[in-house]
């Protein structure tokens, strides 16, 4: 059996990549995708923990399902807003949506 640590390391890498993406990407859609990556890391974590530590109960699995559902909703909503941004400013670059600062 694959040790749990492997899943955790993978999840950690995924999460870090996601964080990096959010920090580095300028396109709103790509930022969202990076967030999705982070959420996937979370799901992986949950499933791994559920499988290894909590086999009788399905809390982790359920959590993962919810995370996926919520993530879908979140993306839907976010994309709508990005579209509004594009309508208003003809750009999806988050750096250009920086009228308000300081």
């Amino acid at each position, binding site marked *: 059996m694959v040790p749990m640590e492997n899943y955790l390391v993978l999840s950690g890498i995924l999460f870090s990549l996601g*964080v990096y993406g959010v*920090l*580095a990407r*300028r396109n709103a859609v790509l930022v969202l995708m990076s967030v999705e990556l982070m959420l996937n890391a979370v799901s992986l974590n949950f499933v791994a923990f559920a499988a290894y530590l909590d086999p009788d109960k399905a809390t982790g699995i359920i959590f993962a399902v919810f995370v996926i559902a919520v993530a879908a909703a979140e993306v839907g909503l976010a994309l709508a807003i990005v579209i509004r941004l594009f309508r208003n400013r003809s750009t999806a670059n*988050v750096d250009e*949506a*920086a009228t*308000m*600062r*300081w």
Partner: protein
Amino acid sequence: MAEHAWILAAVPGLAFIVMAATGRRLPRQGDWMAVLCATAIFALFFAVLANFLNLGEGAWPILNSIEWTAIGNFELRMGIAVDQITIVMLGVITTVALMVNIFSVGYMKGEPRYWWYFAVLQLFVASMLMLVLADNLLLLYVAWELVGLSSFLLIGHYWEKRSAVEAAKKAFITTRVGDVGLLIGIILFWDATGTFNILEIIHHVEEGTIGDTRLFITMMFILLGAMGKSAQLPFHVWLPDAMEGPTPVSALIHAATMVVAGVYLVARMLPVFELAGDALTVVMVVGLLTALFSGVIACVQTDIKKVLAYSTVSQLGFMFVALGAGYASAGMFHLFTHAFFKALLFLGAGSVIIGTHHHQEMAQLGGLWRKMPITAATFLIGSLALAGLFPLAGFWSKDEILHAVEGVGMWPFFFLAIAAIMTAFYSARLFIRTFLGKPQDPEIASHTKETGLTMTLPLVFLALMSIVAGFFIFHDFGSALGFPGGFGEFVFLHHAHVFHVDWSLVALSTVLFVLGTFGGAWLYLGGRLDRSTVLVEWQPKVYDLVKNKFYFDELYQFFIDRVVLGFSYLVSWFDRFAVNDTGVDGSATMTNYTGFLLKHLQSGRVPNYAMAIAVGVVALTLISLAVGS
């Protein structure tokens, strides 16, 4: 009656309140009330005196006090103590006050704020009487400050004149410096003995409650107060300037009464001074220096009031010397006689000023005796008394002082003798240049005329006193009036001192008088100035030095302008720039600027915000791990 002597102070006090409140609307602006009041206290004084003498030596001092406040064991009683010194002071004050009040009716006629002048005069008399009646140092200090205030108000009576304002200010502040010392001394006494009562303090000191060093320091502070009030070196500068005030005020306050408060205080505390190490020596040195210095200055002054002023300072120095020698009677006696003849001289000067329509420079006067015979005659008596002509008042008191100093040592005696010669010299000079010779300014002379009765009567009375007052020293004269004997048997420190004429001393005094007077006469008689001019040209630098009063004023002015005010500017600058602009506003600016820097972290860009979150998580984790382990 004597235990109710406070009434003496209460009457003029009340008069002050009434006159200050209603004075302008009273008929004749209330001058009659002032004279009435002065007469009343003059009469009351005799009642007190009679009662005092009746009660007899065993009852002295007569005490009367009431509880004032108490805070824990800090108890305060206010009251009066009437003893021999008080009686002498009361006599001087009430007499001169009456004369001055009467004189002022004539002198101040038509002057601005006539009513206010009389009102403040009453305030002065009230506080002066309170000063000498006080049985405790606190009340004495209260009165001490109040006489200072009245002096301030009266010197500055002509406040439209810049010089009068400056003089008043100078008098107040200079004496105030001394007063600080006095207050410190008083509080030090309280701290050591737990009381302000003078008799109790003396008692404590005699018991040895206070350590030597501490006692000496305390007495130096007290002496500081006395020196300030009595215009002793180096505080003497205010008194000549105080001549800006109306002349009767100079007579009352700056010759006869207030300025001798310092002498009174030292005399009052003499038992303590005696026990306070070398305190008496200090008193004597101060007195001697003052007597000499101001005697010298008086010799070259040309304003008659200024001459008198320096003469007063010099004579106060004499009194200090006597007290410094430990002779309360000698000091007090000189105070007593001096009050009369100096008041006389000042009032005489006032008469001259009125008679010549406000001229007081000797250079413009001369030959007045023809126009103003009464003034001239009385002034002559005063001058001679001051110079020490046998057997006028000044002679006897100066004799006593010389006698007192004889026992102390050669040098004091020698210097005092010189001061005495100078006294005779400037007295002669003053009289000769003012009244004898030819009028220097015919214009002024043509308008000059003798003054009215209100002014000449006091002069005559005081002239009389200047002749008679000296006889109080004699046992027979004193006992004839109901006193236990002569002045020395009435006022003394430890032992009654029966006066006997020491003819060798009389001879010496007379020599001193003759030397001084003839010196003056030789230089100035006949309206000639050439001989004195030769003197001046012979040593112009010395003359300048003396003429400019040894540059005391300039020195002080320099100190005030450059040091005190400079320091003040420095402090103000420090307050503005260091404390306020840097400290207070600076910290506000810093806060503001920090906000300015911080707000730029808020760049408006999402990745940066996300970065902040990420960094925050890492930082918090590290903190937790660091603290947790």
